[in-house]
């Protein structure tokens, strides 16, 4: 807690881009070099999947259908999900070769695997992405990419240090807000002053009663770095509820709607107003008659509000009549959505649309907001040093201790 990390980040910003380019002749797998319509398996990107329930199953389908991908391994802590995923891959590949793992580290140890996609509960994302980078794998990680602010910073550092292509997982950032991006980036609304995001709720403490753990669930591995707690089906259900019936509802595993849909909406908002590369410098907390809302101030003057009374979701305030120079709008590197963008960047060592730094900057907004709401006060944020200014107590929320043996 007494280290100034900003300079390490600066160094990695310089070398990160260089390493991706220089990596091509030394690291790029031979499988990445094929570009035929349907390359033979030996020339495809070799992929494994971790966490293959709702979102992971969907992601798996997208990767299986990508002709540049050879899908070879699955990992899940639930036997039924794991076996089902293996069967699906084997059927697709017309063989029985897909390996099935409970422990993701076994998968990362396979030298033939080039990239992994991760769709576990959020409390696992940071560790898995960082371990993938350490193992020399590229990674596609579902949103929200980090569970804490410190985790996010370390994920970016790991990606840059090891020259890895790491993509976040919110497809909605580009696909839901394209029209609004065109308006704003095209200059139609003039210089942008603010944008509002409406999303709820925050996650809550969980104290569900113990239940018998099903035989096909590795409960210790599901909990992983989170505090130990007894099994309860609602605690670990992967449905999309944030009101008590899934892990998305509870603070040990998720930031609730604020990070879950927040990753989409805040990601879209920061794209629309073109602050993807920045983090806010201030969070202003307001409580008017019990209605709580926030204003995030960016260093360039842009305001991002959360649940601002009277404002709609993604409502933009521009400067009517004023001119703004149009800018080229970034797009995916390949047709086929966000997973295809990732695979294309794995081949070319390019920067994915949802590069991990953009994704982490988005989730940082969510985390900063949660901390401001939790403490009930405004906060000043030093994005370069990744610390709150003049608020020792807020700095205690930058991270949380991981249950042994897990470590970042």
């Amino acid at each position: 807690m007494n280290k100034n990390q900003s300079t390490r980040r600066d160094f990695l910003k310089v070398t990160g881009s260089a390493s991706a380019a220089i990596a091509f002749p030394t690291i790029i797998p031979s499988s990445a070099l094929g570009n035929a319509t349907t390359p033979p398996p030996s020339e495809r990107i070799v992929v494994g999947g971790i966490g293959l329930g709702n979102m992971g199953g969907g992601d798996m389908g997208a990767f299986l259908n990508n002709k540049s991908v050879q899908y070879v391994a699955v990992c899940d802590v639930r036997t039924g999900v794991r076996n089902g995923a293996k069967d699906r891959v084997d059927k697709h590949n017309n063989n029985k070769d897909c390996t099935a793992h409970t422990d993701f580290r076994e998968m990362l140890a396979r030298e033939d695997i080039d990239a992994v996609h991760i769709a576990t509960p959020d409390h696992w994302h940071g560790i898995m992405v960082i371990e993938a980078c350490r193992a020399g794998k590229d990674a596609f990680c579902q949103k929200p990419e980090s569970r804490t602010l410190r985790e996010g910073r370390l994920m970016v550092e790991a990606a840059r240090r090891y020259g890895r292509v790491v993509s976040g997982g919110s497809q909605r950032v580009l696909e839901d807000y394209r029209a609004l991006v065109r308006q704003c980036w095209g200059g139609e609304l003039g210089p942008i002053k603010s944008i509002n995001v409406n999303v709820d709720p925050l996650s809550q403490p969980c104290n569900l009663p113990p239940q018998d753990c099903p035989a096909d669930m590795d409960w210790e591995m599901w909990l992983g770095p989170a505090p130990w707690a007894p099994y309860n089906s609602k605690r670990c259900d992967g449905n999309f509820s944030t009101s008590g019936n899934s892990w998305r509802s509870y603070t040990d595993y998720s930031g609730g709607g604020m990070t879950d849909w927040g990753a989409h909406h805040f990601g879209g908002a920061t794209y629309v107003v073109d602050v993807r590369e920045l983090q806010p410098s201030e969070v202003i907390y307001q409580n008017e008659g019990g209605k709580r809302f926030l204003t995030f101030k960016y260093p360039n003057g842009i305001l991002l509000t959360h649940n601002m009374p009277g404002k709609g979701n993604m409502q933009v305030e521009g400067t009517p009549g004023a001119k703004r120079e149009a800018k080229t709008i970034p797009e995916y590197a390949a047709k086929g959505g966000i997973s295809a963008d990732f695979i294309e960047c794995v081949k070319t060592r390019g920067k994915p649309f949802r590069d991990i730094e953009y994704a982490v900057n988005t989730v940082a907004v969510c985390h900063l907001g949660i901390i401001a709401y939790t403490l009930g006060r405004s906060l000043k944020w030093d994005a370069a040093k990744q610390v709150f200014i003049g608020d020792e107590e807020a700095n205690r929320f930058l991270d949380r201790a991981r249950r042994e043996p897990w470590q970042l």
Partner: protein
Amino acid sequence: MLDQAFETLKTYDWGMDPNVLRPITDAIVKSYGDAAARKDLETRLIAVLKSEAPRAAKDAVCRALQTIGTAESVPALAALLPDEKLSHMGRHALERIPAPEAGQALRDALPKVAAKLKVGIISSLGVRGEAASVAPLQTALADSDAAVVSAAARGLGAIGIPDAAKALASAMPDPKTKAAIDGALLECAEDLLAAGKKPEAKAAYGKILAGKPSKHVELAANLGIKASS
């Protein structure tokens, strides 16, 4: 309301409505800047921690002390560190309490706990980033348990000061610990570079390259050598 919540906390167990503790978390928020009120809250929380309260209750106390704990809380939290069930939640608070006594308690516990709990304590020491932790982590680099060695390496990498780099450079990696030691050396070298200590950074990168690292590590080290030349 607050008194009732503290009374309930004494027997708080899995399955009870967490909202019964809400008055305590509300009091924590409201008492910001009120030293006397905070001291009163901390004293009452410590009392529960020292009692025979259920595990869920002590978990809740550790979460509260993560926010408001001071050096006063450290002895009661430190007592949890050797307990396999409560060690993590003890660290949950100790890792985030800025008082130097918290770091010292973690260092004091390190040689006294089982290997699995050592890994956790080492992780917390790395996050705290105190220079005083370099020596005990260097000792842990010589542990017979590869998990402890790898954790110690990562802890030193997180601390990232010149002494941490020296400790890592003197480590004797084996196939199980080499990746962690190389990665930690990379982190230290980045911090050395950032601090303008180019010769020391270059030496750290050189140490990595001399050990025939994996290709992606070799690339990172070569880039570092270039940056430190």
